[in-house]
């Protein structure tokens, strides 16, 4: 009987990774052909012209991730720290519950909300509105990972710091948060990966841009938007470009993860592993 169980769970595990392998394999097959140095350095070309790239969308996505992180990380990490260190209060339970609700909120709703409160009052689409919308989506993810990771820091370390004369706030920031940093970075990367590919909220906020723009107050191009536009177009060259764009998007997230992990590891030693 236990052999059957082992076989079944093993089969389930194998099937679980099939989608990822299939997606990656198909993306490489379809997208690699359109990939070239040109794709990273040049602008989209009109239909019918050879070549062209998504330089504007790649830079745009990086800028959007930057804005989203500067909104989502301080708030998410701060809230997570609060939940972990002062978790028993009524406010904490409310925040935890609302963070879970926010986490389940469809991203298009976030987009509509950001349009109503950021785009409409200002009068035009902008990178800031797009970054804020996906940054808000990062908050619950970062909050809950930070809380979990901070909870794994043993109480004895807090006591050791307090006994040395550390005020509570410095204990939280310099001892507890630093000790949990490795795990928090992992959670942050999951959040970045998740929002980097968001398309729906950007439709109403960042809007996309056919030109190269780094202005935060202007509409900005983004890889998922560009992939969307190219994929629903009727042109074969654009379809190939869309596949390549999707591949680059995944690669981008991968590169960000590897670099962040490397930075954290070399800065804080093996203690964080």
């Amino acid at each position, binding site marked *: 009987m236990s052999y059957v169980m082992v076989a079944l769970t093993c089969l389930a595990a194998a099937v679980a990774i099939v989608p990822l392998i299939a997606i990656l394999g198909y993306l490489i097959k379809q997208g690699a052909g359109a990939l070239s140095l040109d794709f990273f350095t040049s602008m989209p070309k009109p239909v019918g012209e050879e070549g062209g790239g998504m330089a504007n969308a790649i830079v745009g996505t990086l800028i959007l991730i930057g804005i989203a992180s500067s909104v989502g990380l301080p708030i998410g990490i701060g809230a997570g720290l609060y939940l972990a260190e002062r978790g028993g209060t009524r406010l904490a339970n409310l925040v935890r519950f609302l963070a879970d609700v926010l986490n389940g909120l469809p991203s298009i709703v976030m987009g509509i909300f950001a349009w109503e409160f950021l785009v409409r009052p200002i009068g035009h689409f902008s990178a800031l509105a797009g970054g804020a919308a996906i940054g808000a989506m990062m908050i619950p993810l970062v909050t809950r990972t930070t809380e979990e990771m901070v909870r794994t820091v043993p109480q004895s*370390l807090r006591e050791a710091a*307090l*006994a*040395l*004369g550390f005020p509570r706030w410095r204990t939280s920031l310099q001892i507890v948060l*630093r*000790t949990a940093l490795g795990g928090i970075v992992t959670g942050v990367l999951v959040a970045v990966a998740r929002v980097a590919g968001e398309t729906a909220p950007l439709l109403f906020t960042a809007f996309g841009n056919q030109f190269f723009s780094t202005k935060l107050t202007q509409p900005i191009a983004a890889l998922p938007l560009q992939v969307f536009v190219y994929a629903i177009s009727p042109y074969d060259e654009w379809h190939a470009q869309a596949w390549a764009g999707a591949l680059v998007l995944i690669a981008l997230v991968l590169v960000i993860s590897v670099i962040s992990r490397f930075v954290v590891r070399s800065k804080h030693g*093996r*203690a*964080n592993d």
Partner: protein
Amino acid sequence: MTEAIARSVSPAGEAPRPVERPAAPAMETRALHAYFGVTHAVRNVTLDFPSNEVTAIIGPSGCGKSTLLRCLNRMHETIPLARVEGEVLFHGQNIYSSEVDPIALRRHVGMVFQRPTPFPTMSIRDNVAAGLRVQPGERLDRRQVDAIVERALKQAALWDEVKDRLKTSATGISGGQQQRLCIARALATSPHILLLDEPTASLDPLSTQKVEELVYELRKSMTVIIVTHNMQQAARVSDRTVFMLSGEMVETASTRVMFTTPSDPRTEAYITGRFG
């Protein structure tokens, strides 16, 4: 000294050490009670801890000895629902009076715990220097910090073992070394009193011996209060012994008297091994 722990005084650096009258205790408790919620963990303890002596607090598990120790640097109150009644006098000043800042107090009353607690993200050097970063007054430059780190590690009898690896992670050394590192960390800020909460409970015999020798040396420069449930350890390292039972202080006497002619039958029963 009393001003140094008071909130009202500007952080102008280390206060000069007072001239010690030979009989003046470094710390005294007056009718001290400690609670966890409704649990009455320390009951009406009035005690003197003489300056530059080692006082051992012994007693069976759960007798309140660790709680008593944690009342002396106001660590007890960091636990939810914990509270303290009565007074603890530190060089004559009640540390529970409203003008005393517990954070400033803890810079003068160091503490080492049962299990080694090195900060895992910091190097050996940075661990020892951690307390210096929160000291009031001017920031020390690198050379001053290095000198203090060396002094503290030598005092903790750890310098020779780690001097070539000060920049490496503090979690890479053995448990016994980690505990001496924690002692060095507590010593770096030159506390007046060092509280040790069963510091050898998780150590092997050889490391235990090193820590005990260290405690014996330390009383030349400071007052040491050590909680232990190892009576031989109390007999080896301390000048005075306090025996506690069920939250009450049963007896206090010089260690020699306590272990040869205890006056309370309960003390005698405990140290002759009839319970506990």
